[in-house]
């Protein structure tokens, strides 16, 4: 649901989406070592597969979005990974649109980067609790999705007054997803901290 289909947004919005995504991509790709490609690809594939999982929670059926999770595990490189995942999702499953890949990447990727920063700096605080990963994982996961939905709603709302109600509808529909992602990211961050700490991005 967080992907925007073609033809809905104002052209100016999705055109600038491409420009901004191209800039962030260029920057993050320059930070990426060629040796990282296999590792990032396999994790991207895992994010991709996991985000196909439909999940019945209460009355709603949702699927994971995992942008917060990508940020927490991949750091800056979450951005190109989300881009690749969205492109493949569009072309393999027709989720989302072609022209909107740029703006969709911003909607998912920028919150992912913020989740990463939150997690990274959060972990530096000495809170006197044992598993800080769970706390900051939960925060990062929840905030990343909340921001993605916020971006989406703003974009819809500014496209035209026709979309204002749609924006509100979309935002409300995502509230349970925010909760689920928060719990998910918290649990996985705690899990990784015990099983494979190097997978959590603290750089």
């Amino acid at each position, binding site marked *: 649901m967080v992907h925007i289909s073609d033809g809905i947004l104002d052209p100016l919005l999705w055109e600038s989406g491409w420009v901004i995504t191209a800039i962030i991509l260029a920057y993050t790709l320059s930070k990426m070592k060629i040796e990282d490609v296999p590792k990032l690809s396999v994790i991207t594939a895992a994010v991709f597969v996991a985000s196909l999982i439909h999940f019945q929670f*209460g009355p709603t059926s949702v699927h994971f979005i995992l942008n917060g999770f990508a940020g927490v595990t991949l750091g800056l490189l979450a951005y190109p990974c989300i881009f690749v995942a969205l492109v493949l999702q569009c*072309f393999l499953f027709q989720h989302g649109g072609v022209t909107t890949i740029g703006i969709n990447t911003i909607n998912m990727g920028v919150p992912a980067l913020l989740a990463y920063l939150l997690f990274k700096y959060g972990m530096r605080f000495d809170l006197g609790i044992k598993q800080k990963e769970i706390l900051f994982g939960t925060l990062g996961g929840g905030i990343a999705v909340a921001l993605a939905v916020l971006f989406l709603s703003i974009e819809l709302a500014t496209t035209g007054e026709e979309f204002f109600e749609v924006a509100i509808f979309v935002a409300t529909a995502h509230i349970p997803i925010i909760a689920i992602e928060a719990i998910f990211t918290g649990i996985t961050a705690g899990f990784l901290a015990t099983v494979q700490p190097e*997978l959590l991005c603290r750089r």
Partner: protein
Amino acid sequence: MISEIDRYAGLSSPIHRWDPRLRIVSILALIFSVVLLYNLTLVTIGMIFSIILVYLSKIPFSFVLDRLKLVFVLVLPFFLIIPFTTMGTDTGVEIARFYGITLSYRGIEAVGFAAMIVLKALTSVMLIFPMIGTSRMDITIKALEGLHLPNKLVQMFAFTYRYIFVLDDEFVRTERSLASRGFKRRGDLYTLTTVSKAIAMLFVKSYERADRVFYAMRSKGYSGKVVTLHEFDSGRQDWINAIAVFGFAVLLQVAAMSGAFSIYGGI
């Protein structure tokens, strides 16, 4: 199990024979052009042209329609909501009011606008089939390299695509093992916790697999660049196809700017 977009890549059609590089660029141009239109008639013409392309590609319509269903479900709310909602009531007839939201009917214009959005979304997705579905995904990815996309990005596409299938299998096996130990997905916290842990484990395993894959690549002489034997060549027919499709995309824009086909002004 993930079903594949390139299931019908093995067919033979003019579209299949078209150089993938030119095919991707031309059809992509067409998609952008259609989405940029704000004119129901032109969008409809674009849609008809797309249907012709799908027909030429010999990809069964049943396959395309099956995939379009999902898009339709996603854009349908717009079709239903837009004609009936607005912020003020000055442009439409109020039908009902609840929780402070006003339901009103804004007439034929709004219906046309909603139809246009739905058509654009469907057209652009439909064009994906002749664009991507007519050659195997790996050839398509190689074509991206031929189009001078950054090497790192092309490699990420290639590896990600490859491992989606491996990891999907892996997750299916995990799900089966969950089920065979009495687990049933319900809408509760226990389910969420369990699924989360299973996914976390998928990541841990993927991470380690990535290490081994990288080791394997290195021991096969990988030093940062993936090169393959595949070569593309574009002949006269490829360029004729490209000019036809690209030309059509440009034509749509020219028509839109000239104001022809305009039914109702503003939109």
